[in-house]
């Protein structure tokens, strides 16, 4: 098992390397000059040139990449031009909000989707099933930002229960922390839930049609027992995959929701950095997200073995 984990982690190294080359090239192919962005309209061309020199932007591409990868291998992802801090620090600061939001949104998704999907599968064609179809249609078609506008209008502007936007770290207290995350988590969670509910339903249906379910029925196992003990456990693998995938997406940062609710997470960091051509940060975020994806997938694979003992990891 430990060998398996180590091998999987080692396998990410070439992935990250290729990615770093691609991202590096893409970044330098887009026009735009961080020095000009920082200094603005009124700056003299000489001032911009001095800053470019200091930022190392006048070096040819290959030495620039060489310098970057050299540092990256030692765990130093460089410094942000604009934030005046190491990229590592910037990533760490923006990871907290994103992680909190991702966990909360995933919880919302699971709490809504699993019961709904299970119920719909066991009551196929009945009201519960139709509710699910309606709900998932709603979740898939209504974009997250529209949903968030409505929730803000209702809960913040009209009822004044929750703040419109912003973020408070966990150190300010649990309720303070949650208060700012409920609406964005709801907006993200509902969209994820609609997908998850559909997968739960179809996966459950597949299992419910299998012959061991009929055997169980014939044995006289009650409906609850069949659905939760026999069917759900067997239907869990595809559900787990979808949860893992959506969690990975959430960690990558929900740029739109983060900017609507003004949450200083990864998505916002990436968007801001692209706008101001903060090359080192763009590079750092992309690599981090790729790594997080790999990690989440690894965790999902490990969970497979726990959920289904028939699976052996080699």
């Amino acid at each position, binding site marked *: 098992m430990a060998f398996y984990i180590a091998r999987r982690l080692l396998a990410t190294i070439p992935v990250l390397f290729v990615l770093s080359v691609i991202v590096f090239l893409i970044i330098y192919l887009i*026009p*735009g*000059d*961080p020095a*000009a*962005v*920082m*200094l*603005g*309209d*009124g*700056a*003299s*061309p000489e*001032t911009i040139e001095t*800053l470019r*020199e*200091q*930022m190392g932007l006048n070096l040819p591409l290959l030495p620039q990449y060489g310098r970057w990868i050299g540092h990256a291998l030692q765990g130093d992802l460089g410094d942000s031009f*604009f*934030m*005046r*801090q*190491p990229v*590592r*620090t*910037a990533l*760490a*600061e923006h*990871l*907290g909000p994103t*992680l909190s939001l991702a966990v909360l949104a995933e919880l919302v998704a699971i709490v809504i989707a699993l019961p709904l999907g299970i119920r719909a599968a066991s009551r196929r064609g009945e009201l519960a099933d139709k509710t699910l179809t309606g709900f998932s249609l709603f979740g898939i078609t209504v974009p997250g930002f529209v949903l968030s*506008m409505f929730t*803000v*209008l209702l809960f*913040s*502007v009209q009822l*004044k229960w929750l*703040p*419109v*936007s*912003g*973020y408070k*770290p966990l150190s300010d207290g649990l309720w303070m922390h949650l208060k700012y995350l409920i609406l964005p988590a709801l907006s993200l969670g509902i969209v994820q839930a609609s997908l998850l509910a559909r997968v739960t339903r179809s996966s459950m249906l597949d299992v419910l049609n299998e012959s061991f379910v009929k055997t169980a029925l014939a044995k006289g196992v009650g409906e609850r027992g069949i659905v939760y003990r026999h069917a759900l456990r067997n239907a869990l693998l595809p559900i787990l995959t979808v949860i893992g995938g959506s969690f990975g997406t959430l960690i990558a940062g929900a740029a739109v929701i983060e*900017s*609507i*609710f*003004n949450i*200083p997470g990864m998505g*916002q*960091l990436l968007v*801001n950095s*692209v*706008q*101001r*051509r903060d090359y080192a940060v763009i590079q750092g975020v992309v690599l981090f997200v790729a790594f997080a994806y790999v990690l989440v997938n690894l*965790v999902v694979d*490990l969970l497979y073995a*726990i959920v289904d*003992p028939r699976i052996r990891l080699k």
Partner: protein
Amino acid sequence: MNKLYRHSLLALLILALFAVYGCSSGNNGGGGNGNAASGTSSPGTSSPAEPVSADLASELHFPLAQQVPTLDPHLALNTNVYVTMNIFEGLFAFDENFKPVPMLAESYDLSEDGKTYTFHLRHGVKFHNGKEMKAEDVVASLNRWKSLTGRAQASLGDSEFAVKDDYTVELALKEPRNDILAQLSHVLNNAAIMPKEVVEAAGPDGVKEYIGTGPFKFVEWKQDQYVHLSKFDDYQSVDAPPSGFSGKKEAFLQDVFFDIVPDSATRFASFLSGTYDYVDVSLDNLPQVQGLSDVTLNKNLGSDINLVFNKKSPLFSDVKYRQAVAAVLDADEILLGTVSSPELYRLNPSYMYPENTTWYSEAGKENYNQKNPDKAKQLLQEAGYDGREVTLLTTKELGGSFYNATIVVQKELESIGVKTKLDINDFATLLKKRADPNAWDIYVGLFTMPSTPSQLLYLNPTYGFADDAKLAELNKALTAASSDEEIKQANDALQQYEWEYLAAVKIGDTYSQTATRHKLTGLKTLAGYPNLANVKLSK
């Protein structure tokens, strides 16, 4: 795998995840304090909020629409100015009519020949670090400002500021210039005075500490989230009525937070929910505040729209083509297309605002807003237009107004048979391309309040590549003029010629709308930038 093993593995995984999260959030406490300019000071440094008076709130949250790239006042761009003008001050500051009024200077003398400025500094003005402001600080600050600012270099040439004694600074120019005070007052790339040590420690990317003389001092800058200022208790106010950024400043607020909220719907919803007492109001949101009894709507003169030609482009190096474009433009149509309401713009044939009585001129206005397609077509024919494509450089960022103005211009150009191409970029790319003479033909932009014609960017060779001996000569004559009569004459001559040379075509002035709750009083703005010094917020 047995059950126990599997469960403990799961628990380990969860633990590991938490550990990663915990370490990463632990890191930023240590790493972020590396330098003072990153502004991540520990929470302990902010003073406990003490209300100035029992009826007044001590804390104000002010929404900013855009990110703050730097807080260095000498580098400050449109977005930073909101913050920096409340931390820093210069020798002079604009009043509400863009007239320079002494701020850190007590007075100034101008020599007979108009070449030597002697600035007498106020005594006893303290920086936020407790040090008294002296001539050496002023000289260090202003010489750095000059080295970083295009318009200052254009005005000052090789001349530098020099210390005469502790409270006197001298500027000896090669030629007489009448725009020095305006250059020292302008809010963009503000000629702010900082301690000598701070200036000397600055790198090309800006100062490392934010220490000024203003009524608020810098506390913390949480990147992309907020900038926190607090009241400066040792602030020495001048005794004159407040106007623009000049005059008396008394801080009634203990803490000011500039919250960065880029999404306009979020900003507006936050205003409605009571988080903010001041907000910019887009036309769509207008009906929602019009009905509110505790809110005042304000109309502020924002920026003016100009169409800038690339004077090095194949077509527009020829004045005939520039004249053709000027002939067809319908200013009303372009302005309406940009701001969507006749209430929010005005026609103005001058490159300066009418409020700016010294520099406003209507000379050459017969070439403004011509709406004459026939004349335009004829000019194109005379110039021998062969269907070459004209590239219009624009961006959808900055609220979309650049783009909106540009597409109306595009339509008008196509109506006289000009082939056009829109080149839409993000702002960073636009900045880069605009500096490249081969990348574009026409650029329609919104410009922040010019206070003297010498501040008009597009009369500058670096911006649109104006290269004309007569223009340079008229510019020189203009800044050398001393009496009111001479100024008027030189100014009329320049504007008259500019309408013939057409470095750019003036389209008009636009207003922006803001909403203020009645409990917020004393707020002064200049070109939309807030002076929070005398603001009171009742509970």
